[in-house]
């Protein structure tokens, strides 16, 4: 029987890795993902898993070791955060375009400077163009489910892509929640046996990974890769369906909360959806037609699904927990692009919130909904790009 336990998000990921029992894990601990490796290394030491744990001297080496191990033919996992992910940056497109199914939990944290260990999405957003599938998780239960699904998606025929499963640092990684752990055997059955593709260790069939690729083939390889990443959306849906059939939990590319008849809505990633849904419930009691859209799959980006989900909404606030400095939040232009050719496209606002772990309060989200009401009433958006929760003299 599946059992209900109290654990932190990091513990849940480590438990998940124990159940998956990967062939190789190479990692360098960095806050707030450290605890994942700390707990997992105990499993290795205790013989609970037969994983080869490679302790490296930096995250660049961690990802390099993961790439080598995945090319050799292993099922490979790792975890990181923030500056650690940034140090892996050079290796990320190598893993993805070489089609190596590595699963990495990214515990979202702010990037320096100034130094900050708390949650925002500047790390995973910073590497959004590295070709990895990116899945975002609302809570500890979901990150646990997402990692299990990621293993299956990454190694599906036609996919063969690395996946980062993102979860909010400290807010989820270090808070204790009640979560339901699935049975070891069922997880094992669900993920299935790993049959590597073109393993370097198959000495009877020599293969070269990562050769020089000049003007005559580079674009073909990149287009082949882009097609595969786009098509992987279907596999994410398929695996979610298989997961629902096996375990009863229902996941999609996006999470629509009371959106069907909503007039005003917010779009969020990760844990802010919890607070957001609470506010939606409160407003619904007052008769406000509020809704929430949480993006679960960020890469490949589900343009059609988002366009469809927001087609009847009149005003939308896209909440970004990261900034593309000098431009807007990274989520905002993509939502705008998704809605641009929608005949009934809603008015849009971009709200930057929660950088470096700053709390987003119920009252602030209520204020955002209030400002959306104003937009609907007056038909005027005002300042499209706004930061909330910042002390400043001249409020824009």
């Amino acid at each position: 029987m599946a059992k209900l336990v109290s654990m932190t998000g990091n513990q849940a990921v480590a438990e998940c890795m124990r159940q998956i029992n990967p062939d190789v894990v190479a990692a360098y601990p960095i806050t707030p993902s450290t605890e994942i490796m700390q707990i997992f290394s105990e499993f290795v030491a205790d013989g609970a898993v037969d994983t080869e744990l490679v302790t490296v001297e930096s995250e660049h080496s961690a990802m390099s070791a993961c790439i080598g191990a995945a090319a050799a033919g292993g099922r490979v996992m790792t975890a990181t955060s923030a500056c650690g992910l940034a140090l892996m940056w050079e290796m990320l497109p190598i893993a993805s375009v070489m089609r190596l199914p590595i699963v990495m939990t990214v515990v979202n944290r702010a990037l320096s400077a100034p130094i900050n260990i708390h949650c925002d999405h500047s790390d995973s957003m910073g590497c959004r163009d590295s070709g990895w599938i990116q899945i975002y998780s609302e809570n500890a239960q979901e990150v646990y489910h997402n990692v299990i699904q990621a293993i299956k998606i990454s190694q599906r025929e036609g996919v063969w892509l690395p996946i980062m499963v993102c979860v909010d640092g400290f807010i989820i990684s270090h808070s204790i929640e009640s979560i339901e752990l699935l049975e070891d055997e069922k997880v094992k059955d669900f993920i299935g046996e790993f049959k590597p593709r073109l393993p370097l260790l198959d000495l009877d069939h020599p293969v070269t990974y990562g050769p020089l690729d000049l003007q005559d083939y580079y674009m073909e390889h990149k287009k082949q890769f882009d097609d595969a990443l786009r098509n992987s959306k279907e596999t994410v849906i398929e695996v979610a369906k298989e997961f629902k059939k096996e375990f009863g939990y229902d996941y999609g590319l996006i999470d629509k909360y009371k959106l069907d008849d909503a007039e005003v809505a917010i779009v969020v990633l990760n844990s802010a959806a919890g607070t957001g849904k609470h506010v939606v419930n409160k407003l619904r009691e007052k008769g406000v037609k509020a809704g929430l859209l949480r993006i679960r799959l960020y890469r490949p980006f589900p343009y059609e699904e988002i366009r469809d989900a927001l087609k009847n909404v009149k005003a939308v606030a896209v909440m970004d927990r990261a900034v593309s400095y000098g431009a807007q939040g990274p989520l905002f232009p993509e939502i705008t692009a998704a809605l641009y050719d929608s005949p009934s496209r809603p008015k849009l606002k971009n709200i930057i919130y929660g950088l470096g772990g700053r709390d987003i309060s119920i009252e602030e989200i209520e204020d955002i909904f209030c400002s959306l009401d104003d937009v609907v009433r007056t038909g005027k958006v005002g300042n499209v790009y706004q930061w909330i929760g910042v002390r400043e003299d001249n409020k824009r």
Partner: protein
Amino acid sequence: MTLKNKEELALGGAIEEAGNAEGYETGGWRTYRPIWDFNKCTHCLTCWISCPDSCIIVENEKVKGADMRFCKGCGVCANECPTKINAITMVEEVTFHK
């Protein structure tokens, strides 16, 4: 050489066939090509040992010329050919395409 479409390529740019560099032409950007005067050539094989691309053809210990699929026209062979012999001349590639 016919170039393959993206659908025909192995995933991720992997090469599944060992030693296939031999089938990959790299001589396309040559602007000069070496021409041997076999009346002068003593088959000392200095050009063969100096060629950075191993493209000089030798059969039965005799130089036969260079494989134009790989010759990049660098001129190392002509330069290394012993001064007294001077059997190799670098000729502008364009003269072969008139």
